[in-house]
């Protein structure tokens, strides 16, 4: 009872903070579309070429958006001392951490799920491929959030960590990238994709169960410095 109360309060708190900065909600969205936009600009407008690389672009952009968004996850909490208080609170830390990551995912990734089909259409993907793209994003982005949170928890006490975070986290993102973009590719070719989706689902289960413990341990380490 008490724990669920703390869980929902924390969830609500992080939501509230995000909505207080309303622009923040649109930012991952805008970043996602901006990064996607860079490719046609850099590569050129040829529709067939863009269509071929669309799955890769979508997923790379999602990865980078997740990476940049993750940086916010514990940084402000660390700086204003609320993280210290969280670690010292009698509530179970892995649960509290799950609340924070969940709030973060809802705020930063869900809008992305809504925008992805629009971008997919602009790259000329067909309806089936778009459906699969949505599914992969739905399964994959929570994994990105949880894994990103581990990286952030490890580096939050370091002053200048943006790049270091990228180095820690991007290699861990690779499985999601491979299965995700491969599934869309395969779907665009009209082949079945259940294999990749199962693998993504397995990654998701793994992340949800194990990451909170890792995050909690990393946070205790970071705060005690």
């Amino acid at each position, binding site marked *: 009872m008490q724990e669920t109360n703390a869980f929902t309060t924390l969830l609500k708190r992080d939501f509230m903070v995000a909505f207080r900065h309303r622009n923040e909600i649109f930012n991952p969205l805008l970043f996602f579309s901006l990064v996607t936009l860079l490719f046609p600009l850099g590569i050129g407008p040829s529709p067939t070429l863009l269509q071929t690389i669309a799955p890769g672009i979508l997923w790379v952009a999602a990865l980078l958006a997740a990476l940049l968004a993750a940086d916010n996850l514990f940084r402000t909490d660390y700086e*204003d001392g609320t993280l210290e*208080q969280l670690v010292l609170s009698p509530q179970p830390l892995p649960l509290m951490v799950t609340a924070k990551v969940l709030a973060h995912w809802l705020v930063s990734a869900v809008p992305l799920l809504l925008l992805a089909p629009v971008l997919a259409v602009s790259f000329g993907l067909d309806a089936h491929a778009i459906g699969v793209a949505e599914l992969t994003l739905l399964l994959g982005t929570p994994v990105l959030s949880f894994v990103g949170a581990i990286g952030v928890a490890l580096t939050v006490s370091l002053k200048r960590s943006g790049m270091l975070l990228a180095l820690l986290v991007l290699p861990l993102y690779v499985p999601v990238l491979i299965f995700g973009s491969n599934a869309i590719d395969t779907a665009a070719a009209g082949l079945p994709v259940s294999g990749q989706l199962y693998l993504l689902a397995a990654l998701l289960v793994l992340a949800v169960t194990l990451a909170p413990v890792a995050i909690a341990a990393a946070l205790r380490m970071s705060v005690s410095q």
Partner: protein
Amino acid sequence: MLLEVVGLHCTRGYRALFSELAFTLEAGQLLLVEGHNGSGKTTLLKMLAGLREADDGQVLWDKQPIQAWGAEYRQQFVWLGHSNGIKDDLTALENLHMMQALGGEQAGFPCRDAKSCVSTSTVLERMGLAGNGHRFPRHFSAGMKRRLALSRLLLSSARLWILDEPQAALDRAGIQMFESMLSEHLQRGGSAIMTSHHEVGLRGPHIQRLVLAA
């Protein structure tokens, strides 16, 4: 005996800050940790809160090492460090609610009468922040933020307070208010450990001093 420290030892970067440190703290007692800048007060407090591991020696709560208690030990105390631990983007009242939720039902003094179980708005009033409940701490001055952080003490029913320079940034009225809070807490059987460069206005046999001299 609430808290007992045995043979505590601390080195930071090859330099011993303190060694063979030992003291006990009973209910109703206040321990003032003193020492010049850099003598290791903050470091000691962090060890007592379990935020830092001791290089040697032990911190015992109720005769058990605090590591063995785990979350149960964290129910017993409130911590206020150099940083305030309040969120700039939640209003003052929301910050208080957050503190309450995270504190849980702290194992400590049960709420016997309405007076000892304070509501968030009376806390604000007591801290001299009346009328600021719906404002954001990012619009507060340094001292107002510290007052909000100290509200944590009134909300919690924990038996032990661990405070690192609680009076920092407070004006005179604020310091007095803090001292009256502290003596109330001690009177009802609570204990406290704090560092301070200010002279504390409390007197009595229940006040111990620990001078760190590295």
